[in-house]
């Protein structure tokens, strides 16, 4: 059993917070930080290190982040950062426990601890469920997480016959029961004999799935946990058989780190080969990794369905992996030798994946438990079910990333000057501009005048005319003023607008004093008006 254990075995209890379990670090973020979770998830899941994840976490500033927990070891001492009320981290070491409270500092609490043998993180006001679900990597909703994984009554229990099947398949009878025996003791080192743990073991998980089954991208691999849950009627019996043999007093637990580390982890795999497969495969690149088409961008794909195509019905992409039905628990996964699971994946050709949404072609194994599933793990979508979820919308796929948003979003803002009606296309001449450098321009469309004028974001019918004027002293801006046929009340005459020029524009209308144009405000031009751009350039407005 020990050989199957991994040091990254976690267990969690459902709650409102998000937890991202990655190969290197673990991040917990509050419910309100969903966007941030999505961003961080990519980094964490790709194996991002502590500092890298921290950078991503704080990219938009600390003040906007009400709370978080970041924990990682990376071969050295265990580092933990935490912030926020209702955030506590307890690190168990051979010398005792180190308890940290996120509200102890206005910024954050940081601690590095050597020789950590167990971790318990509690977030949010309440930890609603008593059931511990094992997890290796992935994204889940949590109220509490433990490492090594705590066996809850639910997670640790297997129906006898199923267990035997598993054992037959795995060939490891003793570990199964041993593992089941451990949970009670195993909970100790982490939670230090906290009563609630025992309660968790004793109480079958009934309400596993919080109403908030979080993000709808899930794959079959997330389901082993649920299916174990209901079968929580054995803990009392099974442990009784083996407990004497292997029982570890809670007090000794910290010292017994290796064993404890292994056992809790171990107890997950025997329960369901599927689970163990999931756990082990999650550590590895999925078998499909070599296929760029079906496995293009792991961080992006498992995002919520609205990641790429918000207008798509989420059901099309997200729903299939979450079977609603509840067939005989465990039968399906157990009877299928775990070894065979990867086979379909490996044989998945590119073509089908590209030609049709793969989900229907590869229905997830109907292994769901009798009750609704527990909070689902995003990170666990990859291998177990034998097929990664399709890109959210393969048919609008744009190099795998960009998608067209035909019916999405508002009409883009009209080009031109904000707050003004769009410039009309070419019209009858409404005025004539005599520029002091000798140019003569008819105002029958948008005219842009300046040292090196540019026209931006116009439509094909507008046909703006760019008129360059000399400016030796550079007093005239590149695009200084716009003159165009007026609309509405100004219909039939020309209007002039300063385009935000550096040195401004002076307008002298017949019978009026000089007027400084305000940038972006159009002024109707009367024949005889003179526009002064500076640098000796004036424009006289005449009738067409």
């Amino acid at each position, binding site marked *: 059993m020990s050989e199957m254990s991994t040091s990254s075995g976690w267990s969690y209890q459902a709650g409102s917070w998000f937890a991202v379990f990655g190969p290197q670090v673990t991040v917990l973020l509050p419910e309100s930080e969903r*966007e941030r979770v*999505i*961003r961080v998830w990519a980094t964490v899941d790709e194996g991002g290190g502590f500092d890298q994840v921290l950078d991503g976490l704080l*990219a*938009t500033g600390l003040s906007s982040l009400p709370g978080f927990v970041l924990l990682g070891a990376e071969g050295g001492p265990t580092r933990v950062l935490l912030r926020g009320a209702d955030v506590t981290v307890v690190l168990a070491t051979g010398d005792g426990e180190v308890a940290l409270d996120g509200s102890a500092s206005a910024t954050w609490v940081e601690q590095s601890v050597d020789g950590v043998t167990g971790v318990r993180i509690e977030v949010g006001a309440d930890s609603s469920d008593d059931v511990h679900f094992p997890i290796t990597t992935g994204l889940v909703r949590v109220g509490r997480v433990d490492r090594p994984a705590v066996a809850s009554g639910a997670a640790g229990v297997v129906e006898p016959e199923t267990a035997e099947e598993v054992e037959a398949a795995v060939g490891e009878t003793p570990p199964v029961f041993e593992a089941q025996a451990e949970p009670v003791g195993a909970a100790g080192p982490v939670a230090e004999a906290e009563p609630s743990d025992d309660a968790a073991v004793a109480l079958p998980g009934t309400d596993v799935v919080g109403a908030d089954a979080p993000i709808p991208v899930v794959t079959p691999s997330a389901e082993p946990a649920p299916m174990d849950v209901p079968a929580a009627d054995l803990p009392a019996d099974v442990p009784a058989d083996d407990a004497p043999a292997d029982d570890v007093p809670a007090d000794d637990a910290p010292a017994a780190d290796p064993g404890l580390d292994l056992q809790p982890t171990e107890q997950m795999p025997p329960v369901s080969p599927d689970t163990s497969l999931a756990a082990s495969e999650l550590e590895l690149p999925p078998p499909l990794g070599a296929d*760029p*088409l079906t496995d*293009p*961008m792991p961080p992006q794909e498992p*995002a919520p369905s*609205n*990641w*790429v*195509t*918000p207008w798509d019905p989420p059901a099309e992409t997200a729903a299939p992996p979450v079977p609603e039905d509840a067939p005989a628990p465990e039968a399906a996964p157990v009877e299928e030798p775990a070894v065979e699971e990867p086979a379909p994946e490996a044989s998945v050709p*590119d073509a089908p994946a*590209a*030609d049709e949404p793969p989900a229907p072609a590869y229905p997830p194994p109907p292994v769901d438990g009798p009750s609704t599933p527990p909070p689902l793990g995003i990170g666990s979508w990859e291998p177990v079910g034998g097929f990664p979820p399709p890109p959210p*919308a393969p*048919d*609008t*796929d*744009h*190099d*795998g*990333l*960009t*998608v*067209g*948003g*035909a*019916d*999405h*979003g*508002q009409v*883009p*803002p009209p*080009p031109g000057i904000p707050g003004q009606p769009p410039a009309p296309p070419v019209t009858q001449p409404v005025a004539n501009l005599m520029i002091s450098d000798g*140019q003569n321009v008819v105002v029958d469309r948008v005219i*842009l005048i300046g040292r*090196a*004028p*540019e*026209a*931006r*974001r*116009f*439509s*094909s*019918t*507008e*046909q*703006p*005319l*760019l*008129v*360059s004027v000399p400016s030796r002293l550079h007093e005239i801006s*590149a695009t200084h003023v716009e003159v165009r046929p007026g609309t509405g009340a100004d219909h039939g005459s020309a209007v002039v607008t300063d385009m935000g020029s550096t040195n401004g524009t002076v307008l002298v209308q017949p019978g009026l004093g000089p007027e400084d144009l305000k940038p972006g405000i159009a002024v109707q031009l009367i024949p005889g008006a003179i526009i002064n751009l500076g640098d000796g350039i004036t424009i006289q407005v005449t009738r067409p």
Partner: protein
Amino acid sequence: MIPVELHPGAATDVGLVREVNEDAYLVAPPVFVVADGMGGHDHGDVASRIVVEEFGKLAEQGYDAARGAEAVAATLVAAQLRIAEYDAEHGDPSERPTSSSGSTVVAALLVEQEDGPRWLLANVGDSRIYRFTDGVLDQVSVDHSIVQELIDAGRISPSAAAEHPERHVITRALGGTASGEADYFLLPLVSAERLLLCSDGVSGMIDDAEIARILGEHEDPRDAADQLVGAAVAAGGRDNATAVVVDVVGLGDDTPYDSDAQRVSLEQKLGALP
């Protein structure tokens, strides 16, 4: 027309993730195009190729340089029709309407106005046109994307856009049901010594500072294009990456020395000169 020399360079790479390069580009002076195909049963490469072919016809047949925007608009309409035809022939009618293939396009071509040639630029989608003048990089085109709309509306900052989950959702495209209407831009040549047309596989993988650095370090447009695409691939290559770099040489603004220097460097690179 003032004689203007255009020195182009172009590069494209499928990237590290995609199997098919759905980008396409056209270098047919004075017409330059980058198109980024999307969608429908990996027919995105067909859509972008259609766009490039249509612009190729435009370059071949010539166009009324005084009415460039109209010529480009007609080209875009032709491309859109062909993409729709292709979809009708090859698409699966049972698919949703959004399944049709499509393409972005950025195009740059010289047009004539009364006092000389100008760049006419056109943009549909989220491929981009930058200009690089006096060491300063300036994004000319404005993306037709959700995040750009959010930025315009002041709801997110430009820096947040790079991480926005909907950053790949575009609001206009050729083909499909999206609007294919282009935005046009007119620039004096002197204000755009060097133009960069690129797909979002470049602009999405390396930031503007990096683009500016590469454009500044490589005098030869071909090197610059190669290096841009290389950097985008090195940065992860999550998407097809295509860059077309066009230098304007021989303007009155240029000193003869500069023009000569650039020409010589090209010829030296070709081995025509020692």
